[in-house]
């Protein structure tokens, strides 16, 4: 006898595909943010499945800080070629060159905050009215309270107190000209769910997620990779270590963790046993203040 049970990952997949199709049906110009990180890779995989055998009916947008991991950019370009999906790049370098933003200076300079400006410019240039993001509610406590469909006003601001109630699977994406929505189809996934799904679906991911040797230095208890984009402080020394990345963002503020996990099963084992959140372990941008994420979201961050 069939039990008619769906595994938890299958149930999450069904929910995400429903959300993606709903947006494609109700919005004029949706786009999907794609960073080359594992969450956006899974989200793109879900979009491909949602419309198969047709092509994904919207483009992907990469907010390019210019401070990238080479492997990740190579991965992005390979994926674009394989899927035939249209790629739109919103460039932070361009925003700096045009004088729209001023770059932070000093050894702790990060382009993370500048991403918001490039992102908003990209939304405006292309007239996107819905932007899929791969944020998960388990990542951070401000995200834990954000809706799947997150309304942004004409200044792209998020107002946590004015969120629309979200009931059953009935999403309300109605909006006026100039306003848009951020849409988070994998809101209910955890880091471990993402990894199980990558394994079950045999999804190709950039190799920086697996253990590899890299020249790194210690700052704020995080291993930062040595890159041409940032200078080391006087007392900092680099060394070669066996590391992997748990998240991938701007290369200047994404830390690596010591790890020997060089296969997906070992990564899953490691993630299941870890006692530190991924953003806590590896993201300098969230450490700036206790409400760092909430503040950035209000300004229009993912």
């Amino acid at each position, binding site marked *: 006898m069939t039990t*008619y049970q769906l595994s938890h990952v299958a149930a999450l997949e069904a929910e995400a595909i429903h959300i993606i199709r709903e947006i494609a049906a109700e919005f004029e110009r949706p786009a999907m943010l794609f960073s080359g990180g594992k969450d956006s890779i899974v989200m793109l995989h879900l979009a491909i499945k949602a419309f198969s055998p047709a092509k994904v009916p919207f483009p992907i947008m990469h907010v390019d800080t210019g401070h990238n991991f080479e492997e990740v950019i190579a991965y992005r370009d390979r994926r674009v070629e394989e899927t035939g999906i249209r790629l739109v790049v919103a460039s932070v370098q361009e925003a700096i060159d045009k004088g729209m933003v001023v770059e932070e200076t000093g050894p702790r300079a990060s382009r993370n905050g500048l991403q918001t400006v490039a992102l908003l410019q990209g939304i405006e240039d292309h007239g996107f009215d819905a932007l899929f993001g791969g944020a998960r509610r388990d990542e951070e406590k401000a995200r834990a309270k954000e809706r799947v469909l997150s309304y942004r006003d004409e200044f792209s601001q998020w107002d946590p107190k004015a969120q629309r109630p979200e*009931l059953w699977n009935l999403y309300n994406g109605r909006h006026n000209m100039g306003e848009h929505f951020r849409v988070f189809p994998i809101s209910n996934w955890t880091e471990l769910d993402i990894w199980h799904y990558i394994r079950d679906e045999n999804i190709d991911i950039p190799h920086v997620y697996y253990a590899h040797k890299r020249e790194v230095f210690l700052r704020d208890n995080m291993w930062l990779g040595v890159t041409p984009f940032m200078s080391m402080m006087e007392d900092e020394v680099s060394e070669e270590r066996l590391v992997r990345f748990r998240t991938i963002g701007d290369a200047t503020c994404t830390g690596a963790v010591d790890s020997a996990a060089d296969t997906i099963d070992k990564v899953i084992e490691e993630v299941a046993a870890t006692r530190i959140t991924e953003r806590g*372990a590896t993201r300098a941008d969230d450490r700036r203040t206790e409400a760092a994420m909430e503040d950035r979201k209000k300004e229009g961050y993912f």
Partner: protein
Amino acid sequence: MELLRLATAGSVDDGKSTLIGRLLYDSKTIFEDQLEAIEATSAQRGDEHVNLALLTDGLRAEREQGITIDVAYRYFATPRRKFIMADTPGHIQYTRNMVTGASTADLAIVLIDARHGVIEQSRRHAFIASLLRIPHLVLAVNKMDLVGWDKEVFDEIREDFTKFASKLDIVDLTFIPMSALLGDNVVDRSANMPWYEGSTLLHHMEEVHIASDRNMVDVRFPVQYVIRPQSTEHHDYRGYAGQVNGGVMKPGDEVMVLPSGFTSTIESIETGGGPVAEAFQPMSVTIRLADDIDVSRGDMLCRPQNQPEVGQDIDAMVCWMSESSSLRAGQKLAIKHTTKWARALIKDVQYRLDINTLHRIEDADDLSLNEIGRIKFRTTQPLFYDKYTRNRSTGSFILVDETTNATVGAGMILGDY
């Protein structure tokens, strides 16, 4: 591993945050950096203990004011199940939030302070859980340590609540005596209450049977998106994508398309990962039909001999969610039901419910924020619906203000009028 969605309701005074903290902590879901962060914040604020409420109160505004303003979602897993927990504040002005959190829940936990017994707030939470048809309700009788682990106190609360619950439509009701603070009967069995022979809370959450809560009888498939590849390889391909809202669909089954009434046969059921032999709730699939008939978004597939109600005159319970307006007869609103948008004209507010006493206020003619009542309305197009008690997907709808675009109402269909 199965997914279980649960909703918790209660206030800080009931020990709800402690209970959630206990579940997260004992299931090893609280991470060291999160614990360190709340320890530091507690110390800075001069709190006597590590304040576990800081884990759930995520927003700056909430931490500053010591309140919870919204639904927060928490995730944890045991080897048996993965849990998605919608944590909602329990105060009356947050009825809207509890309705939101309850709408998709399989199980609700209502906290009762053993010292105070069944109070107005507990009755309200239980009523909302039953209104939203959460199939499993757990009454967590907390703070048993403060009443000397007394069986009589527990029995009295159980009797008291059972009497009240008989007025409600609750499918499965479980009482668990516990102390969230000390951990008794949350994850580990209590040594202090040997008289209690039932499950611990976590054990109950892991074992409660939820597979049969879904509607496996009435085939309901609202068409969400029509897939037409426009490529040479798939030149004639036409697939109807959507999420199954009820029943079991198989290739070869005869189906009817609403509103056209045409019938056809399911040729195949596809997913991005290949064809499947059957589809049921809550799978997202693509249905291909044997005949080339006109089907579009908002249509519904069902079985010819088992069709949903088709109608424009609807009788429903509604929870009003707008701060700036109230619901009254004569109002026009947008309505979203399954994958269909229409407009609704409110014909009548029949009564407002006093959600504490369940008393019907018959002379009420409007509903304001957080109020629940029974209304009649007419829609511009027919809806394909079932009673909410029969199907939570085809029996639910939202109301949207056409000027502000805000979601202002949540509705559960009772039938036609």
